[in-house]
């Protein structure tokens, strides 16, 4: 990998971090990643990240869940083993539909929620028992860490980051602490 050397700038306040992100972006540097102990409102927009498409998948998964529930209830209750419940011996899906609405609703939610979580895990490349990629454990407590790739510009980048209020600046060889 080309970008093996990265710079880690550490901040102790989210407001300072936000203004630092804006300064760094204005200088046209590419921010690789930011680690924060809590979600910082508006950080994704300031970093210039593309908006999430998770909501679209949620809708599609919900549609799949609705379809599965419809097909399933039609097969179970109408085709395979029609049952007379509460004096409604109907062999029509449409006429019995109200009874299936709770199931259709629940499966829509179930599919949407579970598949969305799985998608989120896959996109974020995390899974159970995975070793944390977090470069500095302090970012789980009260520190914020900005990671920028270095391309023979250590000096100017360090000075810039110092000016933005970073309390600590480290240059790290990414291969060494690789996964």
């Amino acid at each position: 990998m080309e970008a093996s050397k990265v710079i880690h700038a550490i901040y102790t306040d989210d407001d300072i971090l936000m203004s630092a992100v804006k300064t760094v972006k204005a200088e046209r540097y590419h921010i690789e990643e930011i680690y924060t102990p809590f979600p910082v409102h508006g950080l994704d927009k300031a970093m210039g990240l593309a908006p999430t498409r998770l909501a679209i998948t949620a809708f599609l998964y919900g549609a799949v869940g609705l379809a599965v529930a419809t097909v399933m209830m039609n097969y179970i209750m109408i085709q395979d083993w029609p049952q007379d419940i509460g004096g409604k011996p109907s062999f029509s899906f449409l006429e019995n539909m109200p009874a299936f609405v709770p199931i259709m609703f629940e499966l829509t939610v179930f599919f949407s929620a579970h598949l969305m979580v799985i998608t989120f895990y896959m996109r974020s490349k995390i899974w159970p028992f995975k070793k944390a990629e977090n470069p500095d454990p302090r970012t789980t407590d009260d520190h914020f860490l900005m990671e920028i790739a270095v391309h023979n510009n250590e000096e100017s980048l360090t000075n810039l980051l110092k000016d933005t209020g970073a309390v600590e600046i480290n240059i790290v060889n990414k291969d060494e602490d690789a996964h």
Partner: protein
Amino acid sequence: MEYKISNRLRTGAIILMILGVLGVGYGFMDAYSVNEDNITEFLANEDHHGDEHATESHGEEHNVSAAHAEEGHADDAHGAEAEAEGHEMTHEEHVLHQLHNRPYAALYVAAFFFFMISLGVLAFYAIQYAAQAGWSPVLFRVMEGITSYVLPGGVLVLLIAFFADSHIFIWMDENVVAHDAIIQNKSGWLDKTWFMIRGLIFLGGWSAYRHFSRKFSVAQDLADVNDNSNFKKNFRISAAFLVFYIYTESIMSWDWIMSVDPHWFSTLFGWYVFASMFVSGITVIALITIFLKSKGLLPFVNDSHIHDLAKFMFGISIFWTYLWFSQFMLIWYANIPEEVTYFVTRIEDYNLPFFGMVALNFLFPLLLLMNSDYKRIPWFVVMTGVVILFGHYLDIFNMIMPATVGDRWFIGIPEIGSVLFFGGLFMLIVFTSLGKYPLLAKGNPFMKESEHFHY
């Protein structure tokens, strides 16, 4: 920002009201042009009209029954004829009642619809205060404008109920009650005087809250920066009002709506009506806000405020559907005759408005407002809002009409005239009230937060 109702708007509202009065007047004249003397003729014309569209099988049926009559004994035929005649008489009376009920019911539906919008907004406004919401204070003056219709609108609903009497509320007819054991058992509650007293108590409580919250809101504008006593008073009376409201709104919905079918009852009816008025009210807040903003009068309202209102429109539409379906499914599944008759009538005689309303109130808002970005596009919100309002008009229509006019419903001149009249009145009162004070409640301690609200 100051606002004064423009002459164009006032004239427009008054023209709507005049057109409405003409429509309502025509409705009454048309309905009463049929009376005891010519009802038989009216029904014969109607049958003749029906015959033109008669299907083959319908004709065959007639032939069969005619043949059957010929075969029968003379005595039997005579008996059957007499019976048919007797039945015809009651049928005629029945139809006559339905025809005469229609203009009253049309007026009542429209009056209640516009009244419930302002009552829903009043509840929303009180929730904002009680929750000390930081996002909404920029919209408070719009809400206060809409709630100015609570008192006049409510008085009109009660007046219509008073004068329409048994045209809408069958239990107000002593002859009916005398032959009806079920209503007799409920007569302790379903009594016209007690009904009116209850209505006045509800209206008194609601408009008292509206009066004082508006007074404190205006007083807070003029108060010293460090003096939040008016805001605190508003917080307290809003919390108290919400308790009063949730009881009285529920009782009001039994009284003013559910009692038109005095044999039928549903335990979640109060919630169901509440959901309808809440979503209609929030929709009207959004529509009037977008209107005033398009005139440049609400520069402090940003698209995050519109976004939040649209989220409420979306969410409460689904909440309404949840309640509608909860009420429907349990009754449909249990299939107990005295309960299920309510929905049988609606599915058989009101199929289009009954299911059409679910599409308008659920599918449209669900699909149109699901996307986050669309919630902040004004014309999208307006379009969905118009659909939601029409859907909830139909909702009230479906609550009142089956009990009053049976299968003789139509959205014609009486209905449209009533909507025009009350719509015009609503606009006139609301926009006049909006012009009384600045559109920014600048004294509200949360105003800074609200102006900078950003989603």
